[in-house]
């Protein structure tokens, strides 16, 4: 079966402590740990680019599974902080990994919904074009666009990258996808020079849109909560993950929260948790949901083979 064969990731070693910002932003430990849910956020070296993070994620992938690079025929990078405006970062990754000249490469410009869109896109594109071995990268180094005096964003975001290997002999396959956009509110999360986020508007959007969106996807597939082993939600903040979970009325054990030590990694947040959850043999059916910049959202049901 064609689908997700393996997932690997890379997180920079450098971590910024939010405890060191308590005085600057008038924070207490409860706010850091139970509201934001980010104790430390990862930060890449200044000279590193998104493509460098992707290459390091790939190095971790080949430590997990043997891959013949000459057989890779599709490479997609999900990012909104590319190495350059021109060319696409996937071409740079292609060059650094010395992939075949018969390999298709393109970028997808999406934020926190990007992994779900990317997963659907790479599988559809590869199946339509009879491609066999694909790499779906996520890398969105927000450290390049953060305003360090903005409490709304300076505490949240971490750098990182993931790579999902798409091939036959899959471990998990997507069963169904669902997507949505509210472009009228694009200004609520915007980067001209530095990142701006209207925290209240983004919270209201996620709390009012995402639980119903996930519920409809389950109903469309004749599923109920009892059929789902895990809900892997984009790790926007602990407060957002908790709010969606409560509105979905699902057990806390089914909704992993894993960003304490690296932060909100945008499109990498879902695959970072998938990498962990794929090790748990009891996970047969997983819902993934990404939401954010756009405003854009997407969910999928993925099943163990």
């Amino acid at each position: 079966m064609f689908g997700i064969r393996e997932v690997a990731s890379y997180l920079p070693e450098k971590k910024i402590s939010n405890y060191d910002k308590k005085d600057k932003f008038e924070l207490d430990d409860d706010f850091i740990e139970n509201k934001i849910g980010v104790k430390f956020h990862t930060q890449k070296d200044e000279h590193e680019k998104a493509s460098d993070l992707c290459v390091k994620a790939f190095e971790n992938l080949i430590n997990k599974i043997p891959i013949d690079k000459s057989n890779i025929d599709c490479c997609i990078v999900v990012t909104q902080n590319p190495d350059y405006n021109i060319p696409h970062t996937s071409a740079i990754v292609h060059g650094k990994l010395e992939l075949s000249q018969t390999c298709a490469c393109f970028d997808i410009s999406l934020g926190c919904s990007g992994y779900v869109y990317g997963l659907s896109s790479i599988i559809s594109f590869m199946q339509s074009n009879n491609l066999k071995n694909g790499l779906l990268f996520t890398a969105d180094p927000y450290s390049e666009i953060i305003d360090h005096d903005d409490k709304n964003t300076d505490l949240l975001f971490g750098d990182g990258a993931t790579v999902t290997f798409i091939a036959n002999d899959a471990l998990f396959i997507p069963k169904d996808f669902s997507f949505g956009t509210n472009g009228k509110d694009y200004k609520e999360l915007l980067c001209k020079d530095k990142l701006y986020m209207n925290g209240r508007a983004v919270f209201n959007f996620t709390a009012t849109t995402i639980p119903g969106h996930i519920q409809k996807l389950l109903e469309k597939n004749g599923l109920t909560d009892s059929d789902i082993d895990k809900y892997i939600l984009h790790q926007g903040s602990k407060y957002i993950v908790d709010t969606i979970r409560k509105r979905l009325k699902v057990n806390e054990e089914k909704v992993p929260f894993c960003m304490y030590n690296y932060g909100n990694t945008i499109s990498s947040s879902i695959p970072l948790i998938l990498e962990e959850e794929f090790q748990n043999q009891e996970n047969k059916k997983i819902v993934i949901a990404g939401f954010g910049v756009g405003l854009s959202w997407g969910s999928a049901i993925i099943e163990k083979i």
Partner: protein
Amino acid sequence: MKATIENVKEVIAEADVLGDVDQMKNDTPLSEQGIDSLDAVNVYLLLEEKFEVKIPDEDLSQVQTIAGIVEYINNQLA
């Protein structure tokens, strides 16, 4: 539905804020009674949903206390 001190306190409790909502003072800002900025955003959303009103950002200064919330919502509903 008209807003009262009691049903506004029910909404605040629904937001899972720290502390005993019944002990909260009606004329003291929520921010001085253990409700941080994220809790407040959730409380405002729950109020909007329960009373079917909109509380735009520019009106937030009017809904800083429980008494202020009751007055603001009832003015919106009038």
